[in-house]
């Protein structure tokens, strides 16, 4: 067991490392950041000075080693726009993102899972078809379209909710709903198919034939078994808590990590972009490991399987 966990951790660290390296080289190889940041007609000396101050005059691999060296001590570079440490900038924005992604996460589960279960239990009924249609509509609609539609209806036409900014709680409602709706749709569909697969198994029929009430069959046999794959999906969704809101934050001008990423990318602010990528990779990888672990624990078949 310990061996397995250690192996997974190693793979996780390797993945994070790869992401950071990949980001580093891709960003550097795409052109001279100095030229991109400073305007074209700046005097050559100040461009050169800029380069020197950011260490951009060194060969790429030396820059890389320096970056890794600093990163291991917690220094992930400074923002080129701002001067402040990148990690500070990024961590400042995390709460704002979490304010919309965490409620959205719970919203997804609260709507998606029951809807999926209900649809599976009442297969081919009107409710099932409606749920499925809505859920398909939910995930085929791009998030920005949904966001704009909601803004159109609730801000412009009805005037109930503000359309952007982050002053008050009401500002958060539309972003949360947008994020939640897409996720709920995916979760509903997935839960439904997991339930259907479980319900089609012979042991469900056997349980029913034993004389158990349908309610008990569902709660004691079907749901726990369907919970296994559903939990894995939910686990993956945890991983997107940080990263999932890029587009939505842009539409609503919400000052979270997603928006910071878009702005930094437009500004070629290397350190910030790298730091965000590192953070996102770390979150997702951690979520994956937890999901793996959880899966191995709740699925009894995994406990005793020979390798």
């Amino acid at each position, binding site marked *: 067991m310990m061996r397995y966990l250690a192996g997974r951790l190693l793979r996780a660290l390797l993945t994070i490392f790869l992401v950071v390296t990949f980001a580093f080289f891709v960003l550097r190889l795409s052109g001279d950041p100095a030229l991109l940041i400073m305007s074209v007609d700046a005097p050559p000396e100040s461009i050169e000075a800029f380069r020197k101050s950011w260490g951009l005059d060194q060969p790429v691999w030396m820059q890389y080693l320096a970056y890794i060296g600093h990163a291991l001590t917690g220094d992930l570079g400074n923002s080129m726009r701002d001067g402040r440490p990148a990690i500070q900038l990024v961590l400042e924005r995390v709460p704002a993102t979490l304010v919309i992604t965490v409620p959205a996460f719970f919203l997804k589960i609260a709507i998606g899972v029951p809807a999926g279960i209900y649809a599976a239990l009442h297969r081919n009924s009107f409710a099932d078809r409606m749920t499925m249609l809505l859920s398909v509509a939910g995930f085929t609609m791009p998030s920005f379209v949904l966001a704009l539609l909601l803004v159109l209806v609730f801000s412009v036409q009805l005037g109930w909710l503000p359309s952007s900014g982050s002053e008050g709680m009401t500002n958060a409602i539309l972003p949360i709903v947008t994020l939640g709706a897409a996720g709920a749709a995916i979760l509903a569909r997935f839960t439904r198919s997991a339930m259907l697969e479980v319900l089609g198994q012979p042991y469900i029929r056997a349980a029913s034939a034993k004389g158990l009430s349908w309610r008990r069959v569902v709660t004691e046999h079907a749901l726990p078994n369907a919970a296994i794959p559903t939990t894995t999906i939910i686990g993956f969704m945890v991983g997107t808590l940080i990263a999932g809101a890029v587009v939505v934050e842009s539409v609503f001008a919400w000052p979270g990590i997603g928006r910071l990423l878009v702005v930094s990318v437009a500004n070629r602010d290397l350190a910030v972009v790298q730091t965000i990528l590192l953070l996102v990779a770390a979150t997702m990888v951690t979520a994956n490991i937890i999901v793996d672990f959880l899966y191995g624990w709740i699925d009894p078949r995994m406990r*005793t399987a*020979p*390798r």
Partner: protein
Amino acid sequence: MNEPLLQADGLVRHYQIRRGSRLFSQAAILRAVDGVSFALQPGRTLGLVGESGCGKTTTARLVLGLLPLTAGEIRLQGETLPQAGSARWRDLRRVMQMVYQDPLAALDRRIAVGRQVMEPLTIHAIGTPAERRDKAQAILQSVGLQGHHFDRYPHELSGGQRQRIVLARALILSPRLLVCDEPISALDVSIQAQVVNLLLDLQAQMGLAYLFISHDLRMVRQVSHEVAVMYLGRIVERGDPDRLFAAPSHPYTRALVSAIPVAHRSARQRLVLKGDPPNPVDVPTGCAFHERCPIAVARCRAETPVLRPVADGRHVACHLAA
């Protein structure tokens, strides 16, 4: 005639597994095959019997080269078996073929059966397309099917017909040895007899040797020239089928034979074995059978018996049989 077609010496196949819960698992060894030796002459049938999990199928796959040996040696026509996938191994497919338990799984459901029967010829680039088609038709006839079956798909045929297709495909290269792994278990009882008769006819016509693996003792008795009984990866008794079934020596064989259903259960007593069913991860010390054996003594726990010849030409691995 004195060089056996197939010679297996001390075949061993172990798997490394982990047992126990995720948290505290220990390494363990699964002894699927634990020292099996036999020789098969051309045109003869060796029947391999035993209960599920005794290692029969693993032995078959070792013989064909589909699994790597942990230890031991296999010689086909006097030549050590080459590594699976190598060019020489592929060549040797023309000598040794396999018939499977589940014919539906062994066939590609998207291709007409006739073309699948032809396929070995295409693979080994034998003959022109027209010649291959003719040969396939001929083989179909010889396994008891008709020309119009050529264009059918596997799911359109019955179980018995599918098994004949698998046979035809295996025979089209005129092999000398067929490894049959439970070839009739998946078929209806009435069809089983037909397929077995077909196998016997083909053996007479083509001089085929069979390694016939099954848990059905009666069928094995009919087809085999020699029978080997396996238990937990080892052969415990080997010899002439009629004599072996009439008067089994090894206690395990006795229990097996007593379990064969008969119409009038007058003479024979049913021997029920005590203890747990065999687990290849937990092979007992000494004789693998001693924990369930009704006549075990202290020596059986301490010392592993080897196959030794007894009176009527049989070989038994038991301290108490000689």
